[in-house]
């Protein structure tokens, strides 16, 4: 790297005037550079990619994927019985939305995911914080929670059907079991890993023990806790579909099982894509919320 360390070193002058926030260490590439040199520069390990290029590359792979799929189906390389082509998928999707009231199924699934996930988060985050902050509490719960997190949520479905029937309670419980223990453990580790020097600094400023928890441990861990919730929400989506595949009369998973009986792969693929899109949207929303809530933690 010919770039000298002086340019990026945090010196007094780096933020010498108000408003001069963080200066980007990137040197703009001169327009005269040849494509080959620019490619080589972009392909250096850990070299950041510009925002426009990032979007372009991200969309490019989606396009490539659909092209590959079209090639396999329209080209007749794969039997229609097993894999619908993109056009059929769109048509089937349209029929699902307009004729079969698929929007209601989507709504049911979203409701179940959010319901089970919020229930788990509301109970798991405080417990995780308590475990991270107070070591005896951690010693009490940690072994059991570590054991419980390895119990596959889907394996509980038959049992939960026995206990709670095939109604909404059972669906919520599957998601709850799948999310709760994961959130507890990850939050506990995050809170437990709070920088010791920050805790010490707060003590020398007169903070009490509860002050340390309220004003150091929790705010310090908050961005990572939000990140944990984003991650676990993604897993909750997996659990809900599994829960809906068995003993359900509504939801995206239910539609997928129905379509399987009719060998309608177009509908199945549409259902899967809908799940992916909702996941992507919720992920974006979560990331945007985290950025807005925790501007100080951006790197």
């Amino acid at each position, binding site marked *: 790297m010919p770039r000298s360390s002086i340019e990026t070193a*945090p*010196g*007094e*002058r*780096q*933020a010498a*005037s*108000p408003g001069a*926030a*963080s200066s980007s260490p990137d040197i703009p590439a001169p327009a005269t550079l040849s494509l080959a040199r620019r490619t080589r520069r972009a392909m250096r390990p850990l070299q950041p990619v510009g925002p426009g290029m990032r979007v372009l590359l991200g969309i490019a792979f989606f396009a490539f994927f659909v092209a590959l799929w079209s090639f396999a189906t329209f080209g007749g390389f794969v039997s229609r019985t097993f894999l619908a082509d993109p056009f059929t998928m769109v048509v089937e999707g349209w029929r699902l939305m307009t004729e079969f009231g698929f929007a209601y199924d989507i709504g049911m699934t979203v409701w179940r995911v959010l319901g089970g996930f919020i229930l788990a988060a509301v109970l798991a985050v405080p417990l995780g914080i308590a475990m991270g902050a107070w070591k005896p509490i951690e010693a009490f719960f940690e072994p059991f929670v570590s054991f419980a997190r390895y119990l596959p949520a889907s394996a509980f479905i038959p049992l939960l059907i026995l206990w709670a029937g095939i109604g909404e309670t059972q669906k919520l419980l599957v998601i709850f079991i799948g999310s709760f223990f994961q959130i507890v453990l990850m939050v506990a580790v995050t809170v437990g890993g709070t*920088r010791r*020097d*920050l805790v*010490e*600094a*707060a*003590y*020398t*400023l*007169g*903070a*009490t023990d509860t*002050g340390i928890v309220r*004003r*150091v441990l929790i*705010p*310090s861990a*908050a961005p990572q806790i939000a990140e944990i919730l984003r991650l676990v929400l993604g897993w909750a989506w997996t659990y809900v579909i599994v829960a809906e595949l068995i003993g359900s009369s509504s939801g995206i998973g239910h539609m997928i099982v129905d379509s399987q009986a009719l060998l309608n792969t177009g509908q199945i693929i549409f259902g899967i894509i809908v799940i992916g899109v909702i996941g992507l949207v919720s992920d974006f929303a979560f990331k945007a919320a985290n950025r807005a809530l*925790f*501007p*100080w*933690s*951006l790197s």
Partner: protein
Amino acid sequence: MNPRPHAALRVEQVSRTFPGMRGGAPTRALEPVSLDAPDNSFITILGPSGCGKSTLLRIVAGLDFPSLGRVTLDGQEVHGPGRDRGMVFQSYTLFPWLTVAENIGFGLRQKGMRAKERHEIVEAFVDKVGLRGFQNHYPKMLSGGMQQRTAIARALANDPRILLLDEPFGALDNQTRGLMQELLLGIWEADRKTVLFVTHDIEEAIFLGSRCVVMSARPGRIKADLAIDLPHPRHYTMKTSPDFMEMKARLVEEIRAEAIKAG
């Protein structure tokens, strides 16, 4: 050492031994050390790396505990950290989720002071450390020097009985360090708060201190205790004056012998 009866801070025969790791021999970090800090003194503690000077300061702060001996502040034995002993650390310990102003007001808020009163004190300290215009910046937007200035303001805004500084400028570049020394000295000359300042930089120890305590290599003990009678206010040009140079030459000898021992 002859203990003065009215010293604000008294360190009495404090020693610290860290238990051995995995059955190894315990490490003696600090031999019995006694030190009195009268009101309004600026004491610099000078020693080679690993001589236990930071351990001593942490014990005074209440963040570590003596194996033997005790520390008293105004006659009260120290049992843990508290607002009466403000501390500035070598590592950047500003709370990253708080702005500069909120960091400075952290202790006052913890004390339950009302927002209006707090605001006045915070604003005064923002000016004292020259951070006007940066009150609403987050620590990550600040340079190292500005972060340490905020840390000093944060400790002082709490109005502690004594101020403890653990190599606060150790991570800064030379020019910034010089400016920070002048800033700290200016603040001290104005209100003469009792200060314990740990450093391994000889010039810094002389320039800032009204008294310099030299510590030996591990296990640390006090090797010399010198009054620094340079007049106040001190200007950075003093660093090249004959008196200063003479003092420096003497301390270089003291420290050199210890550094060789420490390896």
